């Protein structure tokens, strides 16, 4: 760490420190621990990819960083400290509101419906500006146009349009524009490309990358797609059942996955593992309420490498080499 610092000393990149974060949803069936005791450092100025199956808690984690977990979810404990802002979970309401949008840009998983259907897009950009006391509203509109243009859209048309006049993919890009237009130092993108075809997907990701580099911001990219992570992310965090399974530098993790779940994820993708015939789908199903009650490893039922110990104890999330953490009893710290 200390050896690297002088190189990054001139950056204003903002890091995020998450400690012991726990979020539960109260449902008819019981309390779903969607995020369970997560400790995570998001490095400033990097692109961190968060990956995991559907339901593993990625969106919930992202919403918890904004302290905006929707009902019936509830942040039970923990802290989320954003450099230069403070602990999002204990900050007063008004400072929280100002941090959202201004310091932390967020692109919704449901970005297709992230606009007020009754007012024009341009008007909503102005609402955003006024909410954050932007003096130069014309300048803000100019920034918005520029971003839309870069994402391959007819900016003037989009700004005068209502949400229902835009296609799903256009809406998603408009959502990205909203997250970037105030120059937030942290941008969280929750599956920003789900509604896009392969070409638009590539171009949007390219824009995310170039804006990230230009502005030296901190980017969190949530996705199902290991390929996207491989292309874009500096670091990758693997989530499973509301807990972290593994994290490390992307190249390292892809080349030497340590957690059996990560291995499974990588093997399931032919683009990375080699040819299609070698792709192996992950068997079994994601953890349910019953699994959460068990004392052992959440992945136990599906794990090809399990041993007796795994059934009785949850493996701790521990350092396994430089910049690397894994929650698995079978991993011997290498190097």
């Amino acid at each position, binding site marked *: 760490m200390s050896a690297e610092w002088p190189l990054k000393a001139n950056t204003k990149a903002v890091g995020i420190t998450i400690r012991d974060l726990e979020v539960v949803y109260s449902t008819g069936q019981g309390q779903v621990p969607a995020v369970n005791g997560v400790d995570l450092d998001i490095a400033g100025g990097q692109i961190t990819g968060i990956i995991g199956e559907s339901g593993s808690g990625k969106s919930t984690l992202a*919403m918890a960083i*904004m302290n*905006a977990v*929707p009902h019936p979810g509830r942040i039970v404990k923990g802290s989320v400290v954003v450099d230069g802002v403070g602990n999002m979970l204990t900050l007063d309401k008004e400072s929280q*509101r*100002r*941090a*959202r*949008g*201004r310091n932390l840009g*967020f692109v*919704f998983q*449901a*970005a297709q*419906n*992230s*606009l*007020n*259907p*009754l*007012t024009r897009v341009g008007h909503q950009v102005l*609402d*955003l500006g*006024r*909410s*954050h006391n932007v003096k130069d509203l014309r300048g803000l509109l100019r920034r918005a146009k520029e971003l839309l243009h870069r994402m391959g859209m007819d900016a003037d048309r989009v700004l005068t349009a*209502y*949400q*229902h006049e835009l296609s799903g993919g256009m809406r998603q890009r408009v*959502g990205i524009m*909203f*997250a970037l237009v105030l120059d937030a130092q942290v941008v969280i993108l929750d599956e920003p490309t789900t509604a896009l075809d392969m070409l638009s997907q590539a171009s949007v990701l390219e824009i995310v990358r170039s804006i990230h580099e230009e502005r030296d911001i901190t980017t969190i990219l949530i996705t199902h797609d290991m390929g996207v992570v491989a292309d874009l992310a500096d670091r990758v965090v693997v989530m499973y059942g509301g807990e972290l399974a593994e994290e490390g530098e992307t190249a390292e993790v892809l080349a030497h996955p340590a957690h059996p779940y990560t291995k499974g994820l990588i093997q399931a993708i032919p683009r990375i593992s080699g040819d299609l015939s070698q792709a192996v789908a992950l068997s079994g199903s994601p953890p349910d309420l019953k699994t959460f009650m068990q004392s052992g490893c959440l992945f136990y039922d599906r794990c090809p490498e399990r041993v007796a110990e795994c059934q009785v104890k949850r493996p701790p999330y521990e350092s396994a080499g430089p910049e690397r953490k894994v929650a698995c009893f079978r991993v011997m710290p290498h190097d």
Partner: protein
Amino acid sequence: MKNILVRLAKRIFAGIIMVLVMASFTFFLVRMMPGNPVSAKYNELIMRGMTPVQAMDEVRVMYGFIPHQPLWQQYLHYLVQILHLNLGTSISYEGVPVLHIILDAAPWTIILVTTGLIASFIVGVLAGVIAAVKRSSPTGNAITLSGSIMHGIPQFVMGLFLAYVFTTLWAILPFGAPYNAALTPGFNGPFISSLVRHAILPVATYALSSYGGWLLTMKSSVITVLGDDFILASEVRGIKAKTRVRYIAHNAILPLFTIFALSIGFMFGGSLFIEDIFDYPGLGNLLLHAIDARDYPLMSGAFLLITVAVIVANIFADFLYSVVDPRIRR
């Protein structure tokens, strides 16, 4: 804008057709009534010693058509009369044109219901927003409860209760009649103040008994909107609370427009119970009287008015929608 006008024109055309259909329906209904009132009247006049020609003239003035003509001729005649706003003459108020009677009664109802409607709409909608936003707090629950209770009390019970409390128990307000008969009607201070004082209880009755409906409808509409993605998105973008409330209210109030416009339309049916209790000479009392007296021309006139009012209100609501909701403006 052009689209809106085309749409409006289509609606108006459809509205005219509907009015005609309704008018025809009333026509045939009256003709099919057991003991056909038209020929009954004709026979009655003959019995009173009129010549058939006189009797026929009389009936024609009354109903707008000649009883012994073939049905289709009577029908055409009737429609032409309606297009000239000639609704015939009343039977019970002998010789008075139906249109006059209706126009005399309408202002009482319009003033009564419009005031009550607007007051209850504004208060109910605001309370509904608060009840929805604070739905898990005691304040919110109390507001919702107030709505449910008001909504549950029948109008005539509410009217009698208010009358009892404010005219008997406290005797601070007048009871019965639309104004103090000792005063000369006109634009003078005492008369207007008497008018207002007499209107307070009926208006309050109307307002209180429709308040709950607005409140509960608005509450559920707001709750639906609160669950929409774009509201969460605006929170995550740090949009100011004031702006967010504007977003929510704007989206939530849309479904209420139709109900509001329809209430305005149905207002021309009068407020039976209220007008009855407070002795208000409005359309409700008029309709009641027409039915009592089997005054068919007056009855069909009143029904026709209600029909036209509901249709106009609908067109108005539709127009309003296409102005406030861009998704409809196509």
